[in-house]
């Protein structure tokens, strides 16, 4: 394999962006340690890595949002002295954000106007024409755009607009954070044309993505991050997807998943979903038998969160039937769902799962407090003992049971959430991105814990954007596209490639590939033209 920089030819003054020896710690989590990264003018330098590998923190440091504990940032040869996004912008750095930075209520033209540095702004009353002309350069069909509020754009349109907005300031270097998560193949192509144009103009492009085929297509150099450390920078021409995957994962991944125990218990249908329909998904039907782990795969924005919200009682279904352990559910409240044994482990742990200011013990027993009470009174000793045992069993790293969970690392926070399933013992566990923002070490503990629950007869429905995780953890995988199950991948065919293929191929498509739809937002404007 090709390690190290492909060539060290260019001198430091040429670089449009240099990060040297950057380290940053958040609480107990080491997000970056001694990372160096640079970008030359007219180059696309891709940054790849798993969720939580430090990509976003690196971008934050480069763009002046995050103050590094150690290390130096230089933009266009000038050192960024403070953690100031305004200063970074002034030095010639622009950033297209992943979670968009648009003012939702304001029209597109105003958003664009605000993004332009004062010197490059048109007279205020002519901003519409100006916006239309600028946006036209980016393959965005702009007839309706300038006046519609930014909040009305589809996700795909917003992502493309983010890039356009970043380029308005005429930067030396532009950072793109996962710019294609909501884009279909046509839009990705259009974005890549824009990027190629930037490259021709001598702009340095830092391209962060976890979609390797895209990265290999567009990038000149690729840097791999894992657990906050660089695994090396590689020439895109001489690197293969397989080599990159090995570096990103950093372990033979088959070994890192617990094997299901072959138990003699008789199978029974635990969760039966028939014709379930809700906001932006359905009708879907599937059945989970006791002990099963079933994955939900699909590109983002195809109804996955809505499906989980409905199954957990957060949003009522429009039609269909859900049966748990033979009992019909109306799913009009989370209270009912929990009572019937359906427990959601939300993806947004801090806001939707944990009471971050409260301690580990209190968080663990949120749903099972009745087990630790007699009449109205708490049996504190029993509670402390049970939670203490779980802390040991799940290897939750905390100085004490009373430690507020906000001081724990992402992995340990998730373990606290998972510990609830050991106390309440639900028959259906809905895990939404169970290892997002979780360090690699804790991931295995979480997989093991969830498997332990299913080996006890519970069923687990996992939504994950990581095909490796789905392939390793699940017994079978359902592929969701536009809210429909378009494919079921049985256990013996389950591997990463198979899942990715199913996702990118989309629904009802022959191999002739007449069109590639269903991957992302159906409403996105697609204007196919050859450059």
């Amino acid at each position, binding site marked *: 394999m090709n390690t190290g920089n492909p060539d060290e030819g260019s001198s430091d003054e040429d670089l449009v962006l240099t990060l040297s020896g950057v*380290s940053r*710690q958040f*609480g*107990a989590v*080491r997000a970056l340690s001694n990372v160096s990264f640079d970008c030359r003018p007219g180059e696309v330098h891709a940054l790849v890595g798993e969720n939580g590998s430090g990509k976003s923190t690196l971008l934050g440091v480069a763009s002046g949002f995050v103050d590094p*504990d150690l290390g130096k940032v230089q933009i266009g040869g000038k050192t960024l002295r403070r953690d100031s996004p305004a200063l970074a912008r002034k030095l010639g750095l622009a950033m297209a954000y992943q979670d968009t930075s648009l003012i939702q209520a304001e029209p597109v033209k105003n958003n664009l106007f605000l993004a332009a540095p004062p010197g490059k702004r048109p007279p205020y009353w002519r901003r519409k024409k100006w916006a239309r002309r600028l946006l036209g350069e980016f393959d965005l069909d702009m007839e309706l755009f300038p006046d519609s509020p930014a909040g009305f754009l589809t996700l795909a349109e917003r992502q493309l607009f983010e890039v356009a907005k970043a380029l308005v300031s005429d930067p030396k270097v532009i950072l793109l954070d996962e710019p294609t998560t909501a884009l279909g193949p046509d839009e990705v192509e259009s974005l890549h044309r824009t990027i190629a144009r930037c490259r021709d103009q001598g702009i340095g492009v830092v391209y962060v993505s976890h979609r390797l085929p895209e990265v290999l297509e567009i990038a000149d150099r690729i840097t791999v991050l894992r*657990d906050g450390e660089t695994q090396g920078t590689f020439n895109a021409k001489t690197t293969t997807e397989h080599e990159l995957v090995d570096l990103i994962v950093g*372990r*033979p991944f088959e*070994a*890192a998943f*617990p*094997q299901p125990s072959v138990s003699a218990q008789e199978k029974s249908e635990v969760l039966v979903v028939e014709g379930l329909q809700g906001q932006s998904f359905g009708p879907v039907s599937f059945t989970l038998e006791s002990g099963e782990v079933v994955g939900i795969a699909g590109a983002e924005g195809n109804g996955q969160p809505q499906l989980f919200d409905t199954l*957990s*009682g*957060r949003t009522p279904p429009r039609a269909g039937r859900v049966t748990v352990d033979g009992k019909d559910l109306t799913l009009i*409240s*989370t*209270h009912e*769902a*929990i*009572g019937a044994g359906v427990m959601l482990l*939300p993806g947004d742990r801090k*806001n*939707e*799962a*944990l*009471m*971050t*200011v*409260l*301690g580990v013990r*209190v968080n663990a027993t*949120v*749903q099972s*407090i*009745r087990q630790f*009470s007699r009449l*109205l*009174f*708490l049996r*504190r000793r029993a509670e402390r003992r049970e939670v*203490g045992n779980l*802390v*040991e069993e799940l*290897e*939750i790293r*905390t*100085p*004490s049971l*009373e*430690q*507020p969970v906000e001081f724990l690392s992402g992995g340990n926070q998730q373990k606290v959430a998972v510990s*609830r399933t050991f106390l309440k013992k639900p028959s259906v566990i809905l895990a939404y991105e169970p290892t997002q923002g979780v*360090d690699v*070490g*804790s991931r*295995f*503990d979480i997989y*093991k814990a969830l498997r332990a629950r299913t080996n006890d007869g519970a069923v687990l429905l996992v939504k994950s954007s990581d095909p490796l995780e789905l392939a390793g953890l699940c017994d079978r995988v359902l592929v969701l596209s536009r809210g429909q199950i378009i494919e079921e991948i049985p256990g013996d065919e389950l591997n990463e490639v198979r899942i990715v293929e199913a996702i990118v191929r989309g629904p009802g498509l022959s191999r002739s590939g007449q069109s590639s739809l269903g991957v992302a937002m159906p409403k996105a404007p697609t204007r196919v033209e050859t450059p």
Partner: protein
Amino acid sequence: MTTTRSPSSALTSFVVASRYMPVYLALIVLLVVASIWAPATLSRAGLSAVALFGTYLAITALGQMLVIMAGGIDLSVPGTFTLGAIVMVGFGQQTDERIWIAILAAVGLAALVGLVNGIIIGGLKLNALIVTLAVGQVVTGIVNRYHKTFAIQSSVPSGLADWMTVRFLGISRPFWIGVVLTALFIFAFRYTTVGRRFQVVGANPVASLVSGLRVNLNQIAAYVVAAMLYAVAGVLFAALLRNPGVTIGAPYLLGPIAAVVIGGASLTGGLASPLSTWAAAFFLAGLNQMMRVMGLPTALQFVVFGLVIIGGMLVSGDRIIKGVEQVLRERRRPTRIEKPAKKSSIDGPG
């Protein structure tokens, strides 16, 4: 591997408790300042005034604390407080046999006010600030109208007024009622499921909803119980004044909020300590008494009171925790970086 009795256990307790510390420091400072510059504050008469007015403030502050823990705020305190006092007079009809009926009526009607607040805020999800302000107006209006229906010199039953004057262990009886109520809340939060759920829901209503807890019911209960506490304070205040007017509740708009904040509660909900809130009420009452003893003009008293509240917010609750967190981060940095990454799990389970 962690154990529950690691040395950091003490550190954790310190971090958790640190948000409630400033009020006790403030009390000590107040005692020192008062003993030097205004020793009359600490005389028998001065202290018994503090014990009494501190208690009225403490009981209303406990109510406000519940509402703030539930993520809201209650500006209907003056209205409900006055309601309690006036209903005590009106229903008491100056006959001792009717004392209990009047107390029940005062507390019951206040609970109704709280229920209205709770349903509009917890159920219909309207803004707590504006709803309680509006409901407080309505209550004040109704109480004013009701007050006009009985003779202007009407007073509370003399039995109640006399009960007030008897001391227990040298301190007047309302003080002990405040102590009992505070102890009750301390106990409830520590040892009962209801108290636990209440804290959990306040700390994160969204996560509580996802976890299947009944968030609305908890919020409604907060307003109902809070209103009942305001009424209790109102009744006790009426017993002191014998013939309360319709504006007696006015000072109880800002006071309870100040006590809750200085007591270290998190304004985002969930975290508060009944004991520190109680202590903060006495701090504020003591400060008031000291300024009176020192002969400060009333206008200046208002200014000092306001400044103390702002100062209290500067060193209170959420900000302290943030500071402690910052210090901990600095402290941890070198040790954590040297620590090797977590054990590898490549060998698989078992």
